[in-house]
C-alpha cells in the first residue's frame, strides 16, 4: 500500500502476509460461513499478537512498540494484508482499545493481555440512531446507561472500551464484557469472518478507576480513534481491492471467448485500466490519510474522511466490476471472489457511508473557504 517502506516494514508485512496465507487461505475462510470457530480465532489471534499486530499503537514505555516509529502506518500494512486475505480477527477494535489504554496510562493488566493477544477488546463507539450512552458519577463509581451498535468483535471480547458522555463531554471507560447490566446481542453481517453485536448498558456500575483518561476530557482521543478507524478501514479495503483485482486480471487473461482471451478485448481492457486507477488512488489516499492522522496534522480529519469516502465508493465499484467480468461464476459462493467483496461491502457502510463522509468533507471545505 505504501511505496516507501523500510526494509523492516517490508519484512513485517511479508511475515504477516505469509502467516495469513497459511492460516486463513480462501479454502479455510470458505468454511467459516457460520462464523469463525472460537478456539481457532483465539489461537490465531495469539499468534498474530506474537507477530506484532496488537502493539503498534502503544508506546514502548507502555509495553508496545512499532516497526518504523510510525505505528499507525505499520498497522495499516497489517490492515491492508487483512483485506488482501479477507482475514478474520478484531484488528481495529483491539488496536484502538490498546491505543486508548496506552495513551491514558491506565489498566496495565488489561493492556498487557491485549498486547499478548490473550484477551481482546471491542470499541463501543457507534450508536443506534437516536441512541446515546450516558455516564454519570455516583459516589466513587461511574454508572453507564444506553446502547451501542454496531460494536465489532464484542461477542468474544473480554473488555469493552465504551465511549460515552459525562455531563455533555466525552469520556471513555473500560468495562468488563461480563459486568452485570451489560447485554451483548449478536448482529448479522454480510462479512462472515467478522462479527458485530449490539451492546446494551443498563445501570452498569464500575469504579471511577475504570475511566480511561480524565473523564470528560476524552474528546481529542475519541476523535483520533475515529480517524484511525477510518484509515484502517480504507487500508483494509485497498487490500481487498488488490486481491479482487489480481484475481480478475488472472481470470481475464486465462479465460477465452470467441477464440481469444477476455483480456484481449479493448472494452474489457479499458475497464481493467479504470479499475487499476481506482486501486492505485485508493492506496494513495489511504496512505496519505494514515500519515496525516498519525501526525495529528490539521487536515487529518478531512483526509481520513476522503480516504473513507473514496475507498468506500470505489471499493465496491471495483469489486462489483470484478464480479461482472467473472460472469456467472462471480455470483457464486464456491468462487473465492465473494470473500473480498464482503469485506469492501462491510467497510463501505461501517464508520459512516461515503455520502456521510462527503457531507463532513463539505463542512471542512466551507470552513476553509470562509463561505
Amino acid at each position, binding site marked *: 500500500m505504501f*511505496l*516507501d517502506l523500510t526494509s523492516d516494514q517490508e519484512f513485517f508485512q511479508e511475515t504477516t502476509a505469509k502467516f495469513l496465507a497459511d492460516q486463513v487461505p480462501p479454502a479455510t475462510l470458505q468454511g467459516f460461513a457460520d462464523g469463525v470457530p472460537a478456539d481457532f480465532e483465539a489461537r490465531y489471534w495469539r499468534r498474530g499478537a506474537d507477530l506484532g499486530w496488537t502493539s503498534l499503537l502503544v508506546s514502548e514505555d507502555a509495553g508496545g512498540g512499532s516497526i518504523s516509529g510510525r505505528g499507525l502506518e505499520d498497522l495499516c500494512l497489517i490492515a491492508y494484508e487483512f483485506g488482501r486475505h479477507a482475514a478474520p480477527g478484531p484488528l481495529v477494535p483491539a488496536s484502538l482499545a490498546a491505543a486508548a489504554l496506552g495513551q491514558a496510562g491506565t489498566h496495565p493488566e488489561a493492556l498487557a493481555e491485549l498486547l499478548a493477544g490473550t484477551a481482546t477488546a471491542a470499541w463501543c463507539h457507534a450508536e443506534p440512531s437516536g441512541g446515546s450512552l450516558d455516564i454519570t458519577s455516583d459516589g466513587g463509581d461511574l454508572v453507564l446507561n444506553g446502547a451501542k451498535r454496531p460494536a465489532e468483535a464484542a461477542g468474544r471480547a473480554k473488555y469493552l472500551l465504551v465511549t460515552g458522555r459525562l455531563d455533555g463531554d466525552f469520556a471513555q471507560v473500560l468495562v468488563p464484557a461480563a459486568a452485570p447490566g451489560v447485554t451483548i446481542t449478536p448482529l448479522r453481517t454480510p462479512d462472515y469472518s467478522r462479527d458485530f453485536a449490539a451492546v446494551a448498558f443498563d445501570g452498569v456500575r464500575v469504579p471511577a478507576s475504570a475511566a480511561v483518561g480524565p473523564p470528560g476530557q476524552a474528546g481529542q482521543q475519541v476523535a483520533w480513534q475515529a480517524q484511525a478507524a477510518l484509515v484502517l478501514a480504507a487500508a483494509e479495503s485497498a487490500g481487498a481491492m488488490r486481491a479482487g483485482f489480481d484475481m480478475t*486480471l488472472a481470470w*481475464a*487473461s486465462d479465460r477465452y471467448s470467441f477464440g*481469444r*482471451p477476455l*483480456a*484481449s478485448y*479493448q472494452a474489457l*481492457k*479499458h475497464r*481493467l*485500466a*479504470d479499475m*487499476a*486507477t481506482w486501486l*492505485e*488512488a*485508493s*492506496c*494513495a*489516499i489511504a*496512505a*496519505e490519510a494514515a500519515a496525516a492522522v498519525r501526525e495529528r496534522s490539521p487536515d487529518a480529519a*478531512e*483526509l481520513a474522511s*476522503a480516504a473513507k*469516502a*473514496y475507498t468506500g465508493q470505489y471499493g465496491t465499484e471495483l469489486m462489483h466490476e470484478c464480479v461482472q467480468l467473472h460472469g456467472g461464476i462471480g455470483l457464486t459462493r464456491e468462487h473465492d471472489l465473494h470473500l473480498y467483496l464482503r469485506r469492501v461491502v462491510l467497510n463501505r457502510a461501517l464508520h459512516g457511508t461515503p*455520502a456521510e*463522509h*462527503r*457531507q*463532513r*468533507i*463539505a*463542512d*471542512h*471545505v*466551507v470552513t476553509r*473557504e470562509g*463561505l
Partner: protein
Amino acid sequence: MSSESVEEFRARARDWIRATLGPASGYAAAGLNHRPEEEELAAVAHDRVLQRRFFDAGLAGVVVPPEYGGLGLTPAHQRALNEELGGYEWPSRFTVPTMSPCGAVLLEHAPEELKREHLPAILRGEEIWMQFLSEPSGGSDMAGALTTAVADGDDWVLNGSKIWTTGAWWADWALCLARTDWDAPKHAGLTMFALPIRQRGIEVRQIEMLNGARDFCQEYLTDVRVPDTHRVGEVGQGWTVATRLLFHERMQHNSPYVTSPADARQGTAEASPAAIARDAGRLADPLARDLVGQARTLDLAGAALQRRVAAGIRSGQLPDTASAVARLFFTLAQVRASEIKFELAGGAGVAWDETDGAAAGVGDSFLIRQAGAIGGGTSEMARNVIAERVLGLPRETARDRGIPFRDVPRGAAR
C-alpha cells in the same frame, strides 16, 4: 548555491514570494479562456515578466543544471517552492508546456549548443515553447505523423500541418515531430526538430472552440528550413523523444520541472464548487454539500495519486508508463468536477448576469467538459497504455507494424 538546504531555500522563496508576487488571479493561468486577444496578450507579456523575476531572484529552473541557467537543486527544493506558492501568481506559460515537457526533453535529448542557448532563454522568460505533435490526420496515433522533413545539405526542409497547439499564436519555439523516412516502419521513420514558430513558411491559424476561446491553433508548414543543429535526438529516433514528451506531460504538476502552486485548487482560475453553491444559494442543501464533498474527495485522491505515481516512478517501483494511471484519474475527475459545478450552479449556469457571482458562466465551461479528457492524450489512449503497458494485457491487433509507413492504410485526408 547548490549547497542551499531545502529549508534555507524555502525560507528564501517564501520571503521573496510574499514581498514580490500578487495573488493568483482568475484568468492568469494559460488555458482555454474566452476573452479578448489584447487581454490574452497582456497576460502572456505579464508571464514573461514574472518568469524573469523568478530568474533574477534565483528561483527559476530549480532542478536545471547551472550550465543551462538553472539552480542545480533537487526535486525537494522544487516542491518547497511550489508549496510556498500557494495562493500567489506564477508564470503558467513557462511551466506547461514550455518547461515541461519541452524544456525537460531538451535537457534529455537536445545537442549541447541548443541546450546552452535555449534553456537559459526559457528561464529568463524570453521563449515560450510548444509541442507540434498532433496533425489533422490524427493525434492519438501520434507516430502516424505525415509532416515530412527532407534533408537538403546541412538543413532539413519541412512540409505539412500541425494542429491543436494551445497558444501557438503567442508562442516562440516548438518541438516538431516529422517523418524523415517513409520507407521505414511507422515508429522508426520519425525525427524531432526545434524550430521558431514566427517565421516565413509557418502560417498560424487560430481555431475557435465551442466556448468561444481562440487559443487552439493550426500551423501550416511550407518549405520550412531547419538546420541539422536544431535536430533533437538522432535521425529516426523521433518516437523515443516524443514518448519522453508524453511522459513529462503526464507527470503534470508532479514534474520536478514545473513551478506552480502545490495546492492545485489555489492555482486554478475557476471558482470552487463550494463558492458556486453559495452563489447559487444552495450551500445549505445536503445534496449540494454531497457534490462539494465529492469534488473535494476526487481532488484529494487525485493529488495523492499523482504524488504516489511520481514517487513510484522515481524509485523504480512503478514503470514510467504508470504516469498514465494518474493521467486517466485526472481526466475522469476533471470531467466529473465540471459536471458537479454545472449541477451546483443550477439555472444560473445557463442564464446569468453579474449578480450570479461564481455560478455565472458555468454552463460555458461545461460545454468544453471533455477538453481535459482529450488534450494531452485521450482517456481512451491512457486506458490502452495502462492495459497494455502497465498491466501487460494483450496488444490490440494493428495493421501498421513491420511494414513501410507508406503502405500503412490511411483515412481520407482532412
